[in-house]
């Protein structure tokens, strides 16, 4: 039983023996949360995260949140897990008077949103709020749902109201226990004797499911989400082998087994629409395979949906590395799907960072299996996510164009690049925060500021000069691709954070931005620009970033390596990017 295993593991991670990065989480519940805390701690540790957990006493959510002297505020968590139980809600329902019944849903919604508001005012944290498991009780059978004020109907309405309120509040993430409980089956989920005896809101056997749900949310918040799914073709996207069976005999479309493959493709297309990048890696003759995307009537995915095709006879691990390079994303952001156990193991052994799920034999099971792994949890979807595949597609075109030009300079000129360098504004804030959360490689100090902190920078016009950069060229709009946060300290400009999306590397964006940074310093009458480099597991590529601009290394401090520049000595770098005013570029 995985539950007991996790309980045992949790007892062995006192003091973070493996030295994993820590995340501070507060758990507040109106039920017994000790087991949940243990399981969550162990589950996160398996994912390489040390959960430093503050567990409030039993059933004092409001005291913790409304009393600023409480342990919660002393602890300063990054995440607050609010875990309310349907059993306590049921107590409220049974106690409510006839006249208050009509307001039951509104009152409860206001109670919850009141907690969020207060937390938002007092802490820089994200809130992980659960939804309720729907109760087992339905006194009038199916008719119960038609009774507006039956407990069942009210729980359902409250869930809906919490969802709507959370949709408007970026700091609130939902731990969807309605989904989890129905997934395992509510008759198994609930155990009334454990509620009566120990105030357990579900059978503890199922806590690992909740832990996964919460852990996925927290890891996504830490920027550890997968971004790209690499797909095999034969017997993965369609039934049969195109090279052997030919266009007329492969199975995909509305008939027979073909429908299972079509459904899988629809699921993938939906993932693409939510910002996941699709790529193809197949051992095939390129032309024969491409023809299926162009001509087969049963195909759901078309050429334009795939950001990169690598179709040849090379080992798949090499090809996946190639895809990662072309798309400028880390291997740890990739998922590889292939029906062949040989290929899966080859990739697993060569590229352990790539997630390779075991695939079932039955194509009708592809979607349920991938879905249960929950590979693409996220904390937000920006407009840029939805267009992301398009960026990458034009990126692939750029790569092709690059080959035709003799020099990089000629090539860059031909791109007709235009950029905006502008102060943070409300419209760009979601994308800014997302980039801050996700950028790993080109990230000088890896400070994961949240939305509220960015907003504070935006409003502080005296000390803070937070900028974003957007880029477009003749092939398309790359959107917002860089964030630079400057702070004025006397006569010095401190570069608090500088990060950039790797997909615009080697185009002169850094040079363009540094010209702007120095210009900003001059305009503010600052003679010195000071940069910092804080090493992380992934940002080695920028360890000497400042050197190329004439910065001098001045020593290592607890805040990282310090690099200093006298602005009088700076010569603007040559770039092939035209500066654009902020308004023209779409968000």
């Amino acid at each position, binding site marked *: 039983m995985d539950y*007991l295993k996790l309980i045992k593991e949790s007892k062995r991670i006192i003091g973070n023996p493996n030295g994993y990065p820590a995340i501070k989480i507060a758990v507040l519940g109106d039920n017994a949360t000790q087991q949940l805390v243990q399981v969550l701690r162990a589950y996160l540790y398996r994912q390489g995260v040390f959960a430093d957990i503050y567990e409030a006493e039993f059933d004092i959510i409001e005291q913790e949140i409304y009393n600023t002297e409480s342990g919660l505020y002393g602890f300063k968590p990054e995440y607050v897990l609010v875990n309310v139980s349907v059993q306590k809600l049921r107590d409220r329902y049974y106690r409510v008077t006839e006249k208050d019944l009509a307001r039951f849903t509104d009152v409860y919604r206001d109670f919850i949103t009141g907690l969020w508001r207060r937390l938002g005012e007092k802490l820089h944290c994200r809130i992980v709020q659960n939804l309720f498991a729907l109760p087992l009780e339905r006194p009038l059978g199916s008719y119960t749902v038609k009774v507006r004020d039956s407990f069942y109907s009210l729980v359902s309405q409250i869930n809906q109201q919490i969802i709507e309120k959370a949709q408007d509040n970026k700091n609130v993430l939902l731990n969807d226990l309605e989904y989890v409980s129905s997934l395992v089956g509510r008759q198994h989920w609930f155990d009334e004797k454990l509620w009566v005896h120990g105030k357990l809101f579900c059978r503890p*056997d199922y806590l690992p499911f909740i832990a996964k749900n919460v852990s996925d949310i927290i890891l996504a918040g830490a920027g550890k989400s997968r971004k790209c799914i690499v797909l095999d073709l034969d017997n993965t996207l369609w039934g049969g082998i195109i090279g052997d069976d030919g266009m007329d005999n492969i199975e995909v479309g509305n008939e027979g087994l073909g429908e299972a493959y079509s459904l899988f493709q629809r699921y993938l297309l939906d993932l693409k629409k939510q910002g996941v990048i699709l790529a193809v890696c197949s051992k095939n003759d390129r032309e024969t395979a491409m023809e299926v995307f162009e001509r087969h009537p049963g195909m759901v995915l078309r050429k334009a949906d795939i950001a990169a095709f690598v179709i040849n006879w090379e080992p798949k691990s090499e090809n996946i590395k190639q895809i990662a390079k072309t798309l400028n994303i880390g291997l740890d952001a990739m998922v590889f799907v292939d029906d062949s156990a040989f290929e899966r193991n080859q990739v697993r052994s060569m590229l352990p960072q790539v997630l390779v799920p075991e695939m079932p034999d039955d194509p009708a099971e592809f979607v349920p299996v991938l879905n249960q792994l929950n590979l693409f949890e996220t904390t937000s979807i920006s407009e840029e996510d939805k267009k992301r595949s398009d960026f990458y597609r034009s990126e692939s075109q750029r790569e092709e164009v690059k080959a035709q030009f003799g020099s990089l300079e000629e090539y860059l000129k031909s791109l007709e690049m235009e950029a905006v360098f502008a102060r943070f504004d409300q419209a760009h804030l979601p994308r800014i925060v997302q980039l801050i959360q996700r950028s790993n490689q080109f990230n000088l100090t890896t400070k994961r500021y949240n939305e509220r902190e960015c907003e504070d920078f935006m409003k502080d016009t005296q000390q803070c000069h937070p900028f974003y950069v957007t880029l477009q060229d003749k092939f398309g709009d790359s959107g917002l691709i860089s964030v630079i946060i400057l702070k004025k300290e006397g006569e010095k400009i401190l570069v608090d954070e500088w990060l950039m999306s790797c997909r615009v590397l080697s185009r002169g964006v850094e040079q363009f931005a540094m010209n702007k940074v120095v210009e900003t310093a001059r305009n503010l009458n600052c003679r010195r620009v000071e940069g910092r480099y804080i090493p992380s597991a992934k940002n080695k590529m920028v360890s000497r970033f400042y050197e190329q601009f004439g910065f001098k290394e001045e020593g290592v401090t607890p805040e990282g390596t310090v690099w200093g520049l006298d602005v009088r000595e700076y010569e603007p770098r040559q770039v092939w990017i035209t500066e654009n005013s902020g308004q023209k570029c779409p968000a």
Partner: protein
Amino acid sequence: MASTEIMEKLNGVFCDVFDDDGIKIHAAMTARDITEWDSLNHINLVVAVERAFGVKFTTKEIMTYENVGQFADSLERKIKGEGS
């Protein structure tokens, strides 16, 4: 007195729950004999035994067991009476 077979299987569950392979259960054993046997582990024990034997205890049972013997006897009655 519960059968040896049940006692052996139950012993395995105890070892698992209390994370101690050295535990040897006997009829007169109580929560006082195992340091780790607190209210949290009591629930873990109930859940693990229910799962291992495919049975369900009642609220009263889990609140009133005084020793391993009572636990095992009621387990045996459930297995015989209700099947698994």
